[in-house]
């Protein structure tokens, strides 16, 4: 078990290192002079040269990467060219919005997906199943930015149920804050429901086919009881992994949704970094987002081992 955890941690770190290196190299290709970007076009050549020197832009790429990496290890992600502020501070400022969006959207999507997924597995090839699968297909095909736009037009502008734009911080009241991110979260949740239903349905189906399910009916359990007590338990584990995988999708969706609802989150910051070609900021966001995904995947893999004894015993043979 310990062996597995160490191995998993190690491979996670390798992936992270690889991501940071590749991102760094790729972003070095961005044309444009960061020093010029920070000082503006009316800067004197001497000033520019001085700044380049102090930013370490004259060093070869591997030394620049080394500097970035050593900074990263102590929590220093460098200064944004455009904002002139510490990237870490910028990230921390924007994070609450994106995290609230992600958490709320999962809180909406997961229960709904579990109910629909389980029902459609139990009533396979019946009308509930057909409806569930249609919902799934439609959810997969619908662009989130379009849904956001339509919801905005209908619920915010038309019915006036939600604010058209902007974020209310928690400090100004929990419910006001919730209200300001509810609609974007619903949009994000709809994007996740499709893949979630798919995985819950198929893991529930395979769980229903297990021998122990036959056994419970032999033992005279009611259908409801045997499903609730046995099949569900077997079926819930698989979605654990997909929820972790979904995270990447949620963060991606947040970029678009935040830009439509004018929410000051990570997604907006990212869009600004791309438009302004702010290399250091971009590198910081990319590492932060992918790092979160890698770490969450790592943790779920390890949890998975702890929850599911079959995998655990299989793993211990190594």
């Amino acid at each position, binding site marked *: 078990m310990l062996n597995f955890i160490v191995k998993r941690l190690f491979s996670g770190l390798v992936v992270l290192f690889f991501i940071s290196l590749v991102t760094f190299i790729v*972003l070095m290709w961005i044309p444009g002079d960061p020093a010029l970007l920070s000082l503006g076009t009316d800067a004197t050549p001497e000033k520019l040269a001085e700044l380049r020197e102090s930013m370490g832009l004259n060093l070869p790429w591997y030394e620049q990467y080394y500097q970035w990496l050593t900074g990263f290890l102590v929590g220093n992600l460098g200064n944004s060219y455009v904002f002139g502020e510490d990237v870490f501070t910028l990230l921390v400022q924007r994070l609450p919005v994106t995290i609230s969006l992600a958490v709320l959207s999962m809180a909406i999507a997961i229960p709904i997906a579990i109910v629909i997924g389980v029902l459609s597995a139990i009533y396979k090839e019946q009308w509930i199943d057909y409806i569930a699968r249609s919902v799934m297909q439609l959810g997969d095909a619908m662009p989130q930015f379009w849904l956001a736009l339509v919801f905005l037009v209908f619920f915010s502008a038309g019915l006036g149920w939600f604010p058209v734009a902007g974020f209310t911080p928690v400090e100004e009241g929990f419910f006001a804050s919730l209200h300001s991110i509810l609609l974007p979260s619903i949009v994000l949740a709809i994007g996740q429901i499709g893949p979630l239903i798919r995985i819950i349905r198929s893991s529930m189906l395979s769980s229903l086919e297990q021998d122990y399910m036959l056994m419970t009916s032999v033992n005279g359990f009611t259908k409801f009881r045997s499903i609730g007590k046995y099949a569900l338990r077997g079926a819930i584990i698989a979605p654990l992994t997909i929820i972790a995988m979904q995270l990447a999708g949620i*963060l991606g969706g947040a*970029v678009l949704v935040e830009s439509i609802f004018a929410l000051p989150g990570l997604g907006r910051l990212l869009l600004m970094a791309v438009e302004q070609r702010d290399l250091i900021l971009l590198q910081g966001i990319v590492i932060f987002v992918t790092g979160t995904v890698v770490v969450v995947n790592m943790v779920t893999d390890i949890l998975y081992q702890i929850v599911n004894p079959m995998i655990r015993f299989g793993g211990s043979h190594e």
Partner: protein
Amino acid sequence: MSKLKDNKLLVFGLILVMIVISICVVSFFYLPHDPNAMNTSDRFQSPSIEYLLGTDQFGRDIFSRIMVSSQYALLIGLVSVTLGSFLGLILGAIAATSKGFVQSILMRIIDGFMAFPGILLAMMLVAVLGKGLWNAVIAIAIFMVPVFARLSYSLVLDQKNNLYVKAAKSYGASKGRIIFKHILPTILPRLITQFSASIGSAILIESSLSFLGLGVQPPDASWGLMLSESRQYTLTYPFLAFPSGIILIITVLGFNLIGDALNDSMVKRRASA
């Protein structure tokens, strides 16, 4: 019974895709109006005989713009997925047929790419390459590489120890020959399934990039760009959000359904075999 239903899904998917392809083909020969011609006196027209889907904020004919956009959507979808699947296949096959260190390095690289949310990777690449149609194609292709690399890796690994591969090896066939001549035909159906589904997601990413202003650039038309341009007017004239949104859904749904139906029938065939 269930076979019939799968076919229905496939037929429905094919119909949707055929609608889009026909629109695309017709757009090369005939357009009701010049898609980029602005006509300020005819702004925000409701659908009519003259303008089938009305006009947008610049008085341009929405129907013509949707027709032209289908060219970009299909082009970007096809080219980026073809490129991505080809590179992914090669990478996955190399990983599957090599041992130890090379294999684990390649797989970690693929894992690393998988950790990127699609749109984030695409945005990062656009930041490097610059905005525009072809850069979006490259960005989406790179996004597709790990998807196909993962799939080919496991498929090739599955086949690697089969007798026919061993036989080919014993004749002294080269690695490349074994992969392309012997293994590829057996795994092709699965790859084609993924190909179809991936075109759907490629078109989605393209529209998202264009919506963010990073893909197809004005005055050219793309469904995502059309939505983005009309964004500030949708509050007063909501109709603008629908034509390009719905055609986008039809296209993506069509490709996804085809992919799913093919996948289902393959799973069933394997189960009954």
